[in-house]
């Protein structure tokens, strides 16, 4: 199924989207798409069928987000912890990712037409090389789009992200690019995998679990978190609207915390900014190197 969906909304759903969309809409929404395997079990089908259904739901959700005016979406597609699953399931998941990224590369025109920017966040070195190249190519081709952004967390955990961030900071200090007094919260935020994204306004987790499972722990400090019982493949536009409605009712309460965080945060220094540029340059080099290598699937 395509990444860019045509309209699937009924007229009443469209009206509801217009009503909710006329209020304050979160600019950045993160999703923990949980429940694919329980969906498969419930419907007595193979696990991978559940994951495939989950992807279809994601494509539709992206469309609803665009309709609502949500500019950026981040999804937790594969955690580093998921490598603990059976080899059979991991292989099937990697194949599904290959298939979906190939599809994405095939419909680049559509992505360009809609102005969608794709980013994959995580430790991509943990993935098979052919998949790394496909991801790099998708990121590289869409890097100048800005109408909508889709961040896909793949081989990601927040703790690994923070660890890598601290490690590269220490490396920068040892290499003489940075000195310790310039290391602060602001600098770390600007060198995480998500450094080009604003912090999420709303985090939605499906399937009734009420934890963050190592997803964006740093970034969601002042986000509204919405837990819903529905399994991800059963997620509908009504669930999304309910989450945005919840955000509209509550986001004002988080403004204080957000202001306080900004006030307590030290400003970045010139040297800090230079280090951020240095990190970004290194990432761009990685991207162009991998994107320009032939994709073999």
């Amino acid at each position, binding site marked *: 199924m395509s990444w860019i969906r045509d309209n699937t909304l009924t007229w009443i759903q469209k009206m509801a989207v217009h*009503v909710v969309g006329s209020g304050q809409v979160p600019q950045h929404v993160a999703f923990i798409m949980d429940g694919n395997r329980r969906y498969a079990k419930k419907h007595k089908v193979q696990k991978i069928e559940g994951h495939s259904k989950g992807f279809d739901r994601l494509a539709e959700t992206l469309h609803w987000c665009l309709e609502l005016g949500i500019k950026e979406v981040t999804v937790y597609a594969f955690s580093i912890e998921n490598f603990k699953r059976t080899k059979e399931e991991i292989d099937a998941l990697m194949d599904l990712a290959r298939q979906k990224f190939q599809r994405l590369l095939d419909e680049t025109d559509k992505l360009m037409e809609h102005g969608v920017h794709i980013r994959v966040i995580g430790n991509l070195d943990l993935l098979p090389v052919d998949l790394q190249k496909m991801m790099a190519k998708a990121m590289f081709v869409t890097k100048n789009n800005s109408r909508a952004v889709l961040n896909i967390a793949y081989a990601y955990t927040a703790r690994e992200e923070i660890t890598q961030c601290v490690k590269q900071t220490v490396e920068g200090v040892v290499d003489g690019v940075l000195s310790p007094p310039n*290391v602060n919260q602001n*600098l*770390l935020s600007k060198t995480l995998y998500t450094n080009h994204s604003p912090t999420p306004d709303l985090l939605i987790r499906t399937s009734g679990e009420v934890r963050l499972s190592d997803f964006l722990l740093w970034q969601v400090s002042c986000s509204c978190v919405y837990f819903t019982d529905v399994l991800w493949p059963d997620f509908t536009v009504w669930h999304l609207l309910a989450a945005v409605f919840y955000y509209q009712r509550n986001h004002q309460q988080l403004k204080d915390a957000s202001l306080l965080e900004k006030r307590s945060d030290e400003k970045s220094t010139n040297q800090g900014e230079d280090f951020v540029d240095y990190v970004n340059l290194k990432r761009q080099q990685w991207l162009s190197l991998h994107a320009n290598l032939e994709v073999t699937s």
Partner: protein
Amino acid sequence: MAVNLFKVVLVVIHVIFDIYAEARRLFRYAIQYFEDFCFGPWGLKAELDYVHRNKAPLTKPMSHIAVILGSEVVSIKDIVRIALWSHAAGASYVSFYDHSGKLKKCKSALDEALTSECQPKSHIPRTNGYKNGIAGKQYPHVMLFDITDGKAGIARIARELCEKALAKEITHNDINLKFLNEIVLREAGVPEPELGIYCGDICSTYGFLPWHSRITEFLPISSHHNVSVRTFVSVLRRFNKCEQRLGT
């Protein structure tokens, strides 16, 4: 024109929901008041007995309960009650997170209130103390955190590691998840909370220790003000039903 109409409809829905939410809150408050009045328990000692009696079916291990106060005004009396209930439920650590830092300013008042509730006086629990030792068995380790302990705490650790690397005490290759985990947990002085109780309608971490909230189950109470021990025990029961899969 159409946009304005949509806005009006949305405002009306929000107002209806406000009324519904307020009615629900009052209804729940009335039920809680009625239950407490009819069935008790009354007084801290009876409340602790109630927790002891009801913790038997709770099978999940629990070392640390974190309470996120959100935008609520601090109530010392209720914080003391929750701290002692949590300890009675088996948690060695209980932490209270008030992002604004107002709770930390009430530290001495809280210490005093804890002291007056605990017997014998020879083992006085002190907040943010007893990082090691036996206090966790006899009395809870009560910890207070604010926004400067979360991300800013990790930034402080990063800066220290940079200085150590310059002094050649470590190299950047020493830094991995296990290494950093030990330092972050040690610096904060608490293990990862298994249960995070947030106060109010909105679920958010408000900047609570990010490294620690990986597997925390977040469950709500409507407010920590005059919270009933029955509500607390029902949160424990819900927590007990949560299943951890750790990625597998």
